[in-house]
């Protein structure tokens, strides 16, 4: 049915893409794959990773431009404002792009690309994947940058309702322009184990980066308490922990294990490659997420898809992610978390991993995400075109000083674009011939 509709030509832009790994990278990859299956053309643009620079093709004919800009901090490119204009313009014209879709608020490449695309008159969609507070200096700066980008964005997408509220507050966008389209999980990749893990001992799995924001300090308080409540002497309720992940707080966890002599009950695996996450998950019964802030939390979906009961902190968008009977929520406070784990252990006999997995299949699907994103694209393309002056007035309303600064940035961008048009006319840029991959193979 996708074939009858208008075929979009989408450019996904973000600093974050494979070979780097995380929620955003996953989201872009799966969304692109499903959009390709719907008959759209998708091109991804990101910065060079190591010696991976140039054009690569991925599964399903997904074309990826690794533009030769090296990251300087946390996989972000150096913000140059106008440095990326020529290459972005060339890609947009070469690939006959009709719509630009940027991902993640702290990706500089995404902000620059959206700015240039708007200057060149393209419709742009932005997806926000994270939450920000309003109190510290870093957040205030980020919120101003976001306000600049979103002042002129055609439509925005957030991954949860909490994230939508946050984005609307930060950017001043009207709520009707912000869509909520959650992440999904590839349920085929995260299947429960064929034979159910034995009930002799209850294994609680933690897989996360061991940093402050992921609540590693909560784990340090919770694990000894749980181990004390379920001593290893009784026949039935044996509890064991498996912790996957690495980070600066790993030392604290190891100290805790040493101090309470829990070496035989807390297993620390170190960093777990994504390909092995499933095999770790299926060895457990309960998944413990202790994040202090989370826009969506794909890890919970992966665990639930493997048939694990989830215990999680009630932060950010987490309460929206799963129905109440599939997750036990707790306040980010050690005693409440211990209480939640106790509750989870008591309802564990009622949980059938296979049933859980089948339910997850119905709840989350990347194809559904792609279809909903397609609607946003349709809406964005229906929006009326705006002249430069009309857009400048919107930037001007961003703040007394910031508004004028934003206007200046946009005017210079516009002039540079005009200069580029004279210097390198669009007719001289070769367009890429389309090829269609036959879908019969799969």
């Amino acid at each position, binding site marked *: 049915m996708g074939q009858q509709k208008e075929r979009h030509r989408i450019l996904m832009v973000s600093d974050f893409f494979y070979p780097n790994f995380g929620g955003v990278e996953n989201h872009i990859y799966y969304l692109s794959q499903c959009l390709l299956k719907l008959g759209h053309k998708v091109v991804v643009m990101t910065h060079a990773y190591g010696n991976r620079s140039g054009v690569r093709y991925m599964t399903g004919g997904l074309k990826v431009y690794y533009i030769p800009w090296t990251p300087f901090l946390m996989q972000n490119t150096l913000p140059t404002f106008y440095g990326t204009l020529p290459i972005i313009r060339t890609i947009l014209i070469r690939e006959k792009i009709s719509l630009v879709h940027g991902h993640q608020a702290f990706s500089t490449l995404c902000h620059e690309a959206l700015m240039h695309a708007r200057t060149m008159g393209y419709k742009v969609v932005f997806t926000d994947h994270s*939450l*920000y*507070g*309003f*109190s510290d200096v870093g957040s205030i700066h980020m919120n101003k940058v976001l306000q600049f980008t979103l002042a002129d964005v055609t439509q925005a997408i957030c*991954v*949860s*309702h*909490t*994230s939508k*509220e*946050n984005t*609307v*507050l930060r950017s001043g966008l009207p*709520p*009707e*322009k*912000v*869509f*909520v*389209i*959650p992440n999904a999980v590839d349920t085929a990749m995260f299947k429960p184990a064929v034979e159910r893990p034995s009930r002799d001992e209850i294994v609680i799995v933690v897989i996360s980066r061991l940093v402050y*924001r992921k*609540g590693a*300090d*909560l784990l340090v*308080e919770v694990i000894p308490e749980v181990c004390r409540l379920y001593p290893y002497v009784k026949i039935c309720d044996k509890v064991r922990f498996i912790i996957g992940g690495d980070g600066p707080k790993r030392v*604290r966890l190891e100290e805790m294990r040493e101090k309470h002599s829990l070496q035989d009950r807390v297993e620390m695996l170190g960093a777990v490659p994504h390909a092995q996450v499933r095999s770790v998950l299926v060895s457990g019964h309960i998944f413990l997420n202790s994040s*202090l*802030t989370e826009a*969506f939390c794909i890890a919970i979906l992966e665990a639930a898809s493997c048939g694990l009961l989830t215990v999680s*902190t009630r*932060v*950010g*968008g987490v309460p*929206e*992610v*799963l*129905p109440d009977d599939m997750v036990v929520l707790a306040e*980010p*406070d*050690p005693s409440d978390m211990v209480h939640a784990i106790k509750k989870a252990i008591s309802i564990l006999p009622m949980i059938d991993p296979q049933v859980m997995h089948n339910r997850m299949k*119905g*709840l*989350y*699907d990347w194809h*559904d995400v792609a279809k*909903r994103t397609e*609607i*946003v694209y349709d809406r964005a393309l229906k929006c009326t075109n705006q002249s430069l002056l009309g857009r400048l007035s919107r930037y001007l309303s961003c703040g007394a000083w910031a508004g004028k600064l934003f206007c200046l940035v946009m005017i210079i961008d516009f002039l540079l674009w005009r200069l580029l048009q004279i210097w390198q006319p669009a007719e001289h840029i070769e367009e890429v011939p389309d090829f269609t991959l036959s879908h019969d193979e799969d």
Partner: protein
Amino acid sequence: MDTNIGERTSEAQPKWRKVAYGGMQPGFDDNHTDDSFLEDMVMNANVVKRNMLKVMQDSVSISQYLCIVVLVGLVWTYTLRSTLDEKSLLFLDISLLGLGFMVILLTGEMLSLKLLSHYLLNISFFTTGLYILAPIYHILTRSISSDSIWAVTVLLLLLHLFLHDYSGSTIKPPGALQNPTLISCISLNASVVASVFIASRLPSRLHVFAIMLFSLQVFLFAPLVTYCIKKYSIWLHLLLSFFLMSVTLGLVYSLHRLLFVMLLGLLVFVNVVCPYWLIRIQEYKFEINGPWDEAKLCFDITD
């Protein structure tokens, strides 16, 4: 389209729920926004209502320290003009030291002979060191012109005042929990460097020793002494502050008319205008909290 949705919901449509699972909710678009939007937002939850009188009272600490620094400046000036000789300077040092000790002993709860001897030992080490180093201070910045010295000294004192920790003291009483911050250490060092600069303009080694001892005593221990007084009794603190202010104003008046007006203006600005300003801008305070905030841990992390 909206009315269409409204009709359908009134019939048999399930209600819209604020959840992310289960795909697109039938009958509702993904950009659906209802009354529950932003209902968990809390505004100005942690804002403290301030009282004008209380703020003015707190600002007295700032003007008090301001006066102390001005008094140090006055002593420097009089010494450089040879109005104060080294004997009276040394007498001033000793009387200040004794007075400071008295105050700390009387106001603090740490009245013990052991601590007193500990303090005395430290101070004797300190003075001996200073006495030995005095010749070096004397010629340290000989080659620099007096104008530069004065300019740098004034700048350093301004830096010192700007970064000074007015709420506590950099030199902590023994057993204090917190370590001084980097900012307050920079402030303290700026004042010490300023006194070294001034000392090098003096005629004799004894002068240098006396003035260094005086400056260091004041810059290092005056915050501690005033802190102890403030903790002991707020009325004593206010009394001392007003006494210091009037003494400073009187001395500055006899020195220079314009400086007097400037100092008076500064004191009024700190004590009256700034508190009023702070109260006025309170109404622009706009603090947003909500479920997107990072959760605060309710226990201490000891790394």
